[in-house]
């Protein structure tokens, strides 16, 4: 079962959903905080709900306030980057680039893509954590190849 878990994790990395930062999180997990990664990821999703809402509302305004949009996205990118959410981070970067060039359509399009990646990752991680809990505490994180 541990091998299945490792395979699951490897595939998340291979498909580009997660990056090295996720491994950093796992390395922080210890007896004091045995569920650290899951807790942080859960908090990320809970905390970013309001950012998503803020972005949604801001994208409905006319004209768009690119500075505000960029500011929200800076926050979002920061958190996403901190948990290793690679695809989400890529969309955040793209969004900020569109803010920089004042491309409203680009922002809107990218935001839709971002929400998709954000939701997909959430589902995949839910499955992963569920499985991880069944497997039980594993020794220190193994780096994916």
């Amino acid at each position: 079962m541990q091998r299945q878990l490792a395979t699951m994790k490897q595939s998340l990395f291979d498909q580009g959903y997660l990056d090295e930062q996720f491994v950093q999180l796992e390395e922080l997990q210890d007896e004091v905080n045995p569920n650290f990664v899951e807790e942080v990821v859960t908090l990320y999703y809970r905390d970013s709900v309001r950012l998503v809402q803020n972005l949604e509302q801001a994208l409905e305004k006319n004209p768009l306030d690119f500075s505000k949009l960029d500011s929200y996205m800076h926050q979002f990118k920061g958190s996403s980057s901190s948990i290793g959410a690679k695809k989400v981070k890529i969309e955040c970067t793209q969004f900020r680039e569109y803010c920089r060039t004042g491309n409203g359509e680009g922002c809107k399009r990218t935001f839709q893509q971002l929400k998709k990646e954000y939701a997909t990752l959430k589902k995949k991680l839910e499955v992963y954590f569920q499985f991880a809990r069944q497997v039980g505490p594993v020794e220190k994180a193994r780096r994916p190849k």
Partner: protein
Amino acid sequence: MDGAVGFVEEPHVLAVDDNLIDRILVEKLLKNSSCKVTTAENGQRALEYLGLVENNQTSSNDNASKVNMIITDYCMPGMTGYELLKKIKESSVMKDVPVVIMSSENVPTRINKCLEEGAEMFMLKPLKFSDVKKLRCQFLCSSTVRAS
């Protein structure tokens, strides 16, 4: 404490970041490096903790003297990490405490500005364990920590 050689057992670090996830991460990174950690979500709260508000050097608390290092995010609403750094360097109580600035953006002018103002180091986010270990060795070993 009997002036032992080697690391100070549990240096106290004040970590300032407006991002919740980053606050949690930096706290855990520091705790895993045997540091005692206090977090603040913005510059104002950090200054209040240190008893440095209103340029009042006679702190109503002695937190300031117990803090061995401050690590702060650069981009924060209200008061940036740079502004916080300046206030700390202006304080007679805190000016010798190492301040490290973190940022998710690699902007050379920003980095130079902070270093010129007296920041010991500028680190790119997200922080890794190796970054924190480096900080721990460089700024928080007994020869550089003043006696509390």
